[in-house]
């Protein structure tokens, strides 16, 4: 099986570790990964900021760059949702690709930590990936999965929202942090680094000792 990786501009620049984990994980599962180097951004940033024409142009650009690939996999639920909402098919969020395309739940990972899963809004309500991430996490050896209270509620990131409405975003984040800390988890994970950057930035600032780790990095982990 061959698949192209859409890393997303954000992960490429700020979270290369997530990309490495996706490559390692998928190669381990026998997928031949390709990385079209002409790729940049899916256009979500522009579209959600009110620059719809620029956003549309970037979706078109994405289609050209990934034309001819049978499947595209990406470690960002939000970017995949944006692309799918703009009529791009054959693009899969990582957990969709693992569970639906490859048909695996136990990816052979070992991760002996207590983990809370944050279901991001776009994975839950736009992609409707449901419990796929949870099924994958439950199959990880040594992992103690704990449930967040009000798990389906937004963490307050929302891209441009966190900047334009910083006070409201912080109020939402405060509640999410409380729920994360209440679980006693060492690690908070999700299918998107954007929400994790927001939650993790505050966990770090408060010196909580709880870290955020993208789901791909947990699934790639071995003994």
């Amino acid at each position: 099986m061959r698949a192209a990786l859409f890393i997303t501009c954000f992960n490429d620049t700020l979270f290369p570790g997530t990309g490495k984990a996706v490559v390692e994980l998928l190669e381990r599962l026998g997928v031949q990964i390709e990385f079209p180097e002409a790729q940049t951004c899916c256009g979500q940033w522009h579209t959600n900021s009110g620059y719809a024409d620029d956003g549309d142009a970037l979706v078109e650009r994405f289609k050209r760059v990934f034309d001819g690939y049978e499947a595209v996999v990406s470690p960002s639920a939000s970017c995949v949702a944006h692309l799918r909402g703009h009529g791009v098919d054959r693009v899969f969020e990582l957990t969709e690709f693992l569970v639906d395309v490859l048909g695996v739940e136990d990816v052979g990972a070992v991760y002996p930590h207590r983990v809370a899963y944050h279901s991001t809004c776009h994975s839950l309500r736009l992609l409707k990936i449901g419990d796929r991430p949870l099924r994958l996490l439950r199959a990880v050896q040594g992992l103690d999965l704990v449930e967040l209270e009000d798990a389906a509620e937004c963490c307050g990131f929302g891209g441009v929202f966190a900047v334009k409405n910083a006070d409201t975003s912080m109020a939402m984040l405060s509640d999410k942090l409380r729920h994360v800390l209440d679980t006693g988890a060492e690690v908070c994970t999700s299918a998107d680094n954007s929400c994790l950057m927001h939650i993790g930035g505050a966990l770090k600032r408060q010196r909580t000792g709880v870290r955020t780790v993208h789901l791909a990095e947990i699934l790639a982990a071995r003994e």
Partner: protein
Amino acid sequence: MKGFPAAARETLRDSQLRRNVGKATTTIRAKREHAVGEVPDWEALRDAGSAIKERAMATLPEQLERLEASVTRAGGVVHWARDGAEANRIVARIAHDHGAREVIKVKSLATDEIGMNDALAAEGIEAIETDLAELIIQLAHEHSSHILVPAIHKNRAEIRALFERTIAKGQHLGWEASDIAEAARRHLREKFLTVQVATSGANFGIAETGTICVVESEGNGRMCTTLPEVLVTVMGIEKILPEWRDLEVFLQLLPRSSTAERMNPYTSLWTGVREGDGPREFHLILLDNGRTDVLRDEVGRQALHCIRCSACLNVCPVYTRVGGQAYESVYPGPIGAILTPPLRGLDQAPTLPWASSLCGACYEVCPVKIDIPSVLIHLRARVVKEEKSRTSPEHLAMDAIGRVFASPQRFERAQRLARLGRGPLGRLGGSIPLLSGWTAMRELPDFPDQTFRDWWRERRAG
């Protein structure tokens, strides 16, 4: 107008308000989920509701003329009002014609939207709110903070103290909710029995039969629509339903979505006037006040499908933190964020389309399936196109970032500069004013030594 970010900053500081709103919405949210879960064909009902509203809006001129004809046939008088001022003048004239110094009001958003109470006061007519929560707001000289529960930001102790200062002056009220409500009941009873003119809004107006429908929980609305001699209804033109049978769909959708009740407690329906039963005079004012402008926007017009259930407010992570007052409009919450700007003009509420994290919880619960997140994004684009200067710092930055993403070479150069804190991407991390809100509570991630694509190339070469 302060704009949403500043108004929200203020309401967020009020910890009592935040607690009251958070607690009340959490309760309603859980109840709604249960009430909706009982209905096996809920999704089909939502589809039906959406389709009926779509048809009503697509044939609005025809439906309004049908309504006018059927109301007139049943002995009512129909007036057309282009805006709030025109509607208020009509209400005042009718009150004056009957020598009324007071009018009693059924809870109504349309009359709040047009500022009817103040307009009547300027004419020497006092408008008395009869919905308990509206009465509380009126006595406190505040604005509503929720479509359905206008005083949701107040708790029992605050309301008790307010009544002891106003309608129950000199009395000591008990602490039970029923003790406090009793004070309002005594105050209102006297008004119901003496005031001769009432005003109302309309939840639905049925073109086929000329029937107006008001849905409420207290029975105070029923008092207003039956006891006085004269009834004046101000109805937004989008409240129209083409056929009588359409009502069945909404009387299932609305109560479960708004109050989480299986059936609405007081559903008042009246068709014109009838000798010896109810008001002797009925006036229907059909209010535009910006609605035809909303209708012109093909994406945004679905906001007019709203049946004012407030389910979107109760699930919204933004609304439940900031409360209704931060939206500076009669229509708060997610629905307000897509309704207020086009109703008032985008330049009058340019920050509201950004008052959302686009989490999508509102769309999930909307009984008529209004795709609120999509309309928000659409309105953002309209604000940028119609209201923002092409040379504003934000516009220039987004243009620059657009150019960066148009070419992988420029993108890689920007990534390298960003690591040094420069260039279009680096400035986002570096220029502190833009991100002061971010860094107030969160650390920024460090730029890694290597981008993903650098690693990929190195690995392939290696």
